[in-house]
């Protein structure tokens, strides 16, 4: 018996229990969150995957729910990330000022997520959105910076209210808040308004250009175990809204015949492409590992937006798979960084080095995650990127392809940086003695995520079965797959074969390696220094300004967006001052004049 309302009520109840339990004993409360979130994930996966989740029980008066494959897909991914991250809590909870609030809000935001993905009513969607925003907003300041929460809230609120506006416009035309019915029956200007306002919400949640500035601030400063949730799970809410906007609404706009794509969708794709490029460029020059991954989230958000704006079932399959692959990869990477941060106390790459010798398992977790993130086989990211490439090439979208390829190669650059600067390189003396591998309870979720990363890259076809059901639900032709193969427009890939051959190649290389003379072990400091005697590790560790020659080429232009938003804020302030001057001046005569004028104006409108 698992109904969605039961799960939500359970989460709300357990969040209260967690609050009380953590007050008594912080460790006990954290363990309780593990059980609560694991229970929710397991029941969601068990019932949601087969579409046997009960939705018509009415525990919550006034709330109605409906099962969609789309919602279930997102909900399972997000609940999975939540469940995995909850394993980190016992080790991190003592760092926070408000321990009990942390556990409570964590579970409460999960309740909001479940509600948002299973609701069938737009007003409820808005309600759950706000529940998530409010509960997470108080989680973020428990990390490094309080102002991070402000920018997170500002962007989220802008997105939410844009969506609310869209919902009301839709209600005005259609006459209902129903999700399945509402969007598809929109026409004319209203469709365009709703399309734009929903996309603003999607962009703000997903952190896509031009509403991306909150991503590095919030991700970088959030508590270490909460960053994987933000990047792996919560930004996917934006993807959910983007799917609603890009696929369900058909705004009237001219078709660009050369590429067979409506103009409105092409604009969105261009924005997604810009997001890829800017995210990549900013990630390359970032020094904080968490901010770097945040910018990579921005770039991957761009991929998702591009995929859903192509109006093409292969691209949709790629987009959905990318959501899954990126959720796993980014959760894995953030969790590895969180583990390093717990053991060393910093996430700055310029302060770390040679952690691999102490934390090899964390290293493997990070390695697999970034292979997936960079879209290299045999991990999941390759398959989704391949599908998106298929669609882009088939449509002949040259400029978007430039951005996609740039992002794809650029992702090698930025994901390699933490690998080189943080895990590899010289073992710095300050970490030689104190650092050891992360505790076992933290390794469990990381290893599970790593295995899933490999699974998504080797045997994706069962997952594509589910994704095909979503695509069918959205009214498109499903992706052609067989037991092992995936068919794109201009080729077939067989991920299992690729992985197998890769394994074969590694075995061959290993045989060559092992049959040759054994090599002599030397220390890291015994290295080629042009025959200088160097005794300090820092001098032999290259981690600051890693891509300096490349960064120099665009260093002048990085502040454009920040400056733009700053000046926008100034303009708004000026406007506020002007209206204050005009309306709120202390002379009664002026106020009366304006009241009369406005009344006259309104009456004039009435007469017309």
């Amino acid at each position, binding site marked *: 018996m698992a109904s969605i309302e039961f799960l939500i009520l359970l989460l709300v109840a357990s969040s209260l229990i967690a609050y009380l339990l953590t007050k008594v004993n912080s460790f006990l409360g954290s363990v309780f969150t593990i059980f609560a979130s694991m229970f929710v994930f397991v029941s969601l996966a068990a019932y949601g995957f087969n579409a046997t989740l009960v939705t018509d029980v009415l525990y919550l008066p006034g709330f109605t729910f409906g099962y969609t494959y789309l919602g279930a897909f997102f909900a399972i991914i997000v609940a999975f990330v939540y469940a995995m991250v909850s394993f980190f809590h016992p080790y991190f909870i003592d760092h926070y000022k408000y321990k009990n609030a942390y556990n409570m809000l964590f579970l409460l935001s999960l309740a909001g997520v479940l509600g948002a993905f299973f609701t069938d009513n737009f007003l409820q969607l808005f309600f759950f959105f706000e529940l998530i925003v409010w509960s997470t907003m108080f989680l973020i300041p428990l990390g490094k910076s309080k102002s991070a929460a402000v920018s997170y809230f500002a962007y989220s609120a802008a997105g939410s209210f844009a969506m609310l506006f869209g919902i009301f416009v839709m209600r005005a035309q259609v006459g209902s808040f129903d999700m399945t019915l509402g969007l598809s029956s929109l026409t004319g200007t209203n469709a365009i308004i709703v399309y734009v306002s929903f996309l603003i919400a999607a962009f703000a949640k997903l952190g896509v250009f031009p509403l991306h500035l909150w991503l590095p601030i919030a991700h970088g400063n959030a508590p270490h175990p909460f960053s994987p949730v933000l990047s792996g799970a919560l930004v996917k809410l934006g993807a959910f809204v983007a799917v609603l906007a890009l696929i369900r609404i058909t705004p009237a706009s001219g078709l660009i015949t050369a590429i067979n794509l409506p103009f409105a969708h092409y604009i969105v794709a261009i924005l997604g492409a810009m997001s890829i490029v800017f995210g990549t460029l900013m990630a390359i020059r970032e020094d904080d590992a968490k901010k770097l991954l945040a910018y990579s989230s921005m770039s991957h958000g761009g991929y998702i937006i591009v995929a859903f704006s192509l109006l093409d079932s292969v691209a949709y399959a790629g987009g959905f798979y990318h959501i899954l692959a990126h959720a796993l990869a980014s959760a894995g990477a953030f969790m590895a960084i969180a583990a390093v941060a717990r053991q060393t106390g910093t996430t700055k790459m310029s302060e770390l080095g040679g952690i691999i010798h102490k934390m090899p398992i964390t290293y493997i977790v990070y390695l697999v995650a970034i292979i997936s993130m960079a879209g290299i086989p045999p991990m999941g990211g390759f398959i989704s990127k391949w599908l998106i490439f298929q669609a882009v090439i088939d449509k002949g979208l040259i400029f978007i*392809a430039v951005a996609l390829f740039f992002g794809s190669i650029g992702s090698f650059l930025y994901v*390699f940086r933490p690998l080189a600067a943080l895990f590899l390189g010289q073992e710095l003396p300050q970490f030689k003695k104190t650092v050891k591998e992360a505790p076992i309870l933290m390794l469990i979720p990381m290893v599970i995520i790593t295995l899933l990363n490999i699974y998504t890259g080797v045997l994706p076809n069962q997952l594509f079965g589910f994704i095909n059901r979503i695509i069918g639900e959205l009214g498109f032709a499903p992706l052609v797959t067989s037991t092992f193969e995936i068919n794109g427009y201009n080729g077939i890939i067989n991920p299992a074969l690729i992985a197998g051959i890769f394994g074969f190649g590694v075995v061959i290389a290993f045989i060559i390696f092992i049959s040759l003379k054994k090599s002599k072990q030397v220390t890291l400091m015994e290295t080629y220094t042009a025959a200088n005697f160097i005794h300090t590790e820092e001098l032999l560790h290259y981690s600051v300004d890693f891509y300096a020659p490349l960064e120099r080429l665009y260093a002048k232009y990085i502040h454009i967006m920040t400056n733009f938003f700053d000046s926008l804020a100034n303009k708004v302030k000026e406007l506020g001052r002007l209206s204050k001057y005009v309306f709120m001046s202390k002379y009664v005569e002026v106020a009366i004049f304006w009241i009369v004028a406005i009344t006259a104006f309104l009456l004039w409108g009435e007469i017309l």
Partner: protein
Amino acid sequence: MIVNILIGFGIAVLGFVLQTSVAGVNRKIIGRLQKRYGPKWYQEFLDIFKLLSKRSISHGWIFDFGVIMALGGIIATAMFMPITNTFVAFAGYDNFFIFVYLLAVGMLGMAMSASGSGNPLASIGVMRALTTMLAYEVPFMIVILTVIKLSNTSSMVGIGEFQRALGNNWFLIALPLGGIVAVISLMGMLGKKPFETYIAPAEIASGPMVEYGGKQLGMLFIMHEITVFIEVSLFVHIFLGGASNIFIFLIKYFVVYTVVNLISNVNGRFKIDQVVKFYYKWPLIMAVTQAIIAIYFGWVI
């Protein structure tokens, strides 16, 4: 399946032998070009086997593991490479993207191993290699996009057959601007002279390879030879109409590698930011122009 794997492994070995011989012959040619006698044509083999016979050093498990991953990834990539229509291990799976991205596994392995050696010069070399990759890959991929869009397949054999079916209308000629971009990008891929910033022996002591000696270096040499085989073969299949039998393949392969090598030997070396600026200027403009006129206007020679 076993047979396919054996054929694939045979192709990888063939690729190694072929490229190593061709590289040796090219060293001779370059020697003659510089009024020298030049080494023996099998000098490259001697070098590699000598390296394998030496006793090397190791900087820990990641140093060795990266090398194994690099060579393994490259062998795996070479196993998918078709030689002719029929001489191919996994027919139908010779997708262009597999080559590009599976190649990256090998590169990642090498980069990891180099950084794991703890030498800053190796990290600088890796940084330069990745930056160069960011530079040459985008124009090249745009040209490939044009080719795939025109021939409507991304299979190597398919693209080759498409060109031969049109009466040997090679894409190198059919897409002249794209052909130039492809040659320039190929030089970047092979790490040839104007773009060999990441090796730079006099500057950063051979970059990523600074700490390798003995068997690790030998395995990286094998990896490098197979990588060159893959990259030149890609060029042969995509831009020179593939090959209907193995001799034509060998001739085309030899010509492409030699021409690229000759061009590279009369050039100096760019600085790393010059490489990026160069590729994002003319080759990218040419590639995009070519893509627009070929895809949107349909003007193909």
